[in-house]
C-alpha cells in the first residue's frame, strides 16, 4: 500500500461518475453501505440485486471490471477469516465434502463475505472516480471539522514524501550490507522508524514556519465551489435509493 497509490488509484475517465461532486458520491457510498449491512443475510437474492446495481455503476463509470477485481485483493484477510467461521461456530451441523460445518457459521461466513465484498467494491469505485483532493473537499462539504480535513490533506500531501524518505533509508541500510532477517533486525528497523519520526516532525515544524511567513493563521482559506445541483444528488443517490427499495422488498418478503 505505497503512498504513491494515493494518486495511482484514480482512474481518469470521462464519465457521469467522474463528474459528480465528491460529497454526493461519499454520501451515496455510506448510505449504500448502511443499506447492505442492514439487509438480512438470508435474503440471498437481494445481494445478487446489489451486485447487479454495483456492476451497473462500474460500467457507468467506464471502469474495467478486471481492474475492480484486481483491487479487491485488500479483501483477502476477511475471506480467510470468513472461511474459518463454519469450522469454529457451534450449533446444527451439516456435512460438506466430509467436513462437519456449522450451519450458522456458514450463514455468518456468507453474510460477512457478501457484505464486505459489496462494501469494498463501492469504496473502489469511489477511489477510482474521485481524486483525493476532491475527496477531501467533499468531506469538508459534508461538515467534517475543517481542522480534521486540514490534517488529512497534510497527511495526503506528505505521505509520498515520507514514503520516499523511507525508501532512501532502505537503500542506505542495504548498501551497508543489512538484510532484514529475523528478530535481530528489529533494533535497526526501529532506529529507522525513530529517524523517520524526527525527520517528519522537523519537516512539520519547517512547513509550519514557511506557512506562517506566508500569512497562515491556523485555518486555510475556503475555496468556494458551486454547490452540487439537485440533479447531481439525484444521480448519486440513485444507487442507495434503489438498494433501499431492494432491502425493503427483502424484509417484507
Amino acid at each position, binding site marked *: *500500500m505505497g*503512498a504513491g*497509490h*494515493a494518486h495511482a488509484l484514480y482512474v481518469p475517465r470521462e464519465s457521469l461518475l467522474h463528474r459528480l461532486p465528491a460529497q454526493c458520491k461519499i454520501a451515496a*457510498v455510506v448510505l449504500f*453501505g*448502511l443499506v447492505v*449491512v*442492514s439487509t438480512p*443475510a438470508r435474503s440471498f437474492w437481494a445481494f445478487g440485486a446489489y451486485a447487479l446495481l454495483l456492476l451497473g455503476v462500474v460500467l457507468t463509470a467506464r471502469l474495467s471490471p478486471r481492474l475492480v477485481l484486481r483491487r479487491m485483493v485488500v*479483501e483477502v484477510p*476477511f475471506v480467510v477469516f470468513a472461511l474459518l467461521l463454519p469450522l469454529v461456530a*457451534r450449533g446444527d451441523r451439516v456435512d460438506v465434502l466430509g467436513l462437519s460445518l*456449522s450451519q*450458522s*457459521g456458514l*450463514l455468518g461466513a456468507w453474510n*460477512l463475505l*457478501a457484505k*464486505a465484498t*459489496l*462494501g*469494498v467494491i463501492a*469504496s*473502489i469505485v*469511489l*477511489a477510482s472516480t474521485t481524486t483525493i483532493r476532491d*475527496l477531501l473537499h467533499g468531506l469538508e462539504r459534508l461538515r467534517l471539522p475543517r*481542522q*480534521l480535513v486540514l*490534517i*488529512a490533506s*497534510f497527511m495526503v500531501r*506528505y*505521505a509520498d*514524501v*515520507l*514514503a520516499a524518505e*523511507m525508501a532512501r533509508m532502505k537503500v542506505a541500510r542495504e548498501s551497508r550490507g543489512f538484510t*532484514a532477517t*529475523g*528478530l535481530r*533486525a528489529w533494533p535497526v*528497523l*526501529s*532506529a529507522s522508524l*525513530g529517524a*523517520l*519520526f*524526527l525527520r*517528519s*516532525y522537523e*519537516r*512539520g*515544524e*519547517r512547513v509550519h514556519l514557511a506557512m*506562517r511567513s506566508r500569512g*497562515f493563521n*491556523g485555518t*486555510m482559506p475556503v475555496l468556494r465551489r458551486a454547490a452540487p445541483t439537485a440533479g447531481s444528488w439525484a444521480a448519486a443517490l440513485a444507487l442507495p435509493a434503489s438498494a433501499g427499495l431492494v432491502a425493503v422488498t427483502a424484509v417484507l418478503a
Partner: protein
Amino acid sequence: MHIPDGFIDAPTSVAFGVVAAAGIGYCLRRGSAELDDRAAPLAGLTAAFVFAAQMLNFPVAAGTSGHLLGGVLAAVLVGPWIGATCLAVVLLLQGLFFADGGITALGLNVTNMSLLGALGGYLIFRVVLRLLPQRRTSVPVAAAVAAGLSVPIAAAGFVLQFAIGGTVEDLSLRAVLAAMVGVHVLIGLGEATITFLTVGLVLRSRPDLVHGARGLLRRESARSAPAPVVPAVPAARP
C-alpha cells in the same frame, strides 16, 4: 486487520460511529488548544508518519512479518489528543480510499484503535510511568508496557462490539474473546518491542520532542540547574 462491512450490524455500527465522532471531536479541540496554529502541519505530518510506519515490515520468522500499529507510539511522541486524532485520520483515509476497513465500520475501527488503543494506551503509559523510578530511561519502558497492552485492549473492544451487534450466531463469545485476545497478545509483544526501541531512540536524539517525557525532563533540568540538560524551547531549524 480492520473490521470490514457486515461483521457488526448497522445499529451498533452507527452507535459506535457517534461515539467515535464525539471522542475525536473532543481530541481535536484539546489538540488544537495545545498546538494552536501549529496543529494542522504537525498533526498532518505525524499522521503521514503513522501511515508510512505501517508500511515498514518487521520480519518475525519463517517468512512472516508484522508491522507497527503505532497508536501508543504516536500518543507518547506527540501527546494523546493529537496522537488519537492522527490515528483516526489514517483510518478514515484507509477506509474511504484504500477500502481497508469498511466505511460503515469506520466508527468501530476508530473506537478500537484510536480511542481505546491510543487514548487508553496513553492512560496506561501515564500510570506505569508514575510507578517507575522518575528517570528518563523509564519513559520507553512505560511506553512499551502501554503499547503491549493497547493491542489486546483494542481487540477486546472488537469483542465487545461483537457481543452487542455481532452478525454470526452460535459463536461462543468466550472463544472469540480467547482467540482475539490471545492472538493480539502476541502482536502486542511486537508492538511493545518496536515502541520501546523507537521511543528510546527519539528520546536520545531529541528528548524535547517526546511529549510523554515532558514533566520528567522539566524536573530533571530543574535539578541540574543552572546548566539545563535540555533546551526549554525546541530549536526550530531555520
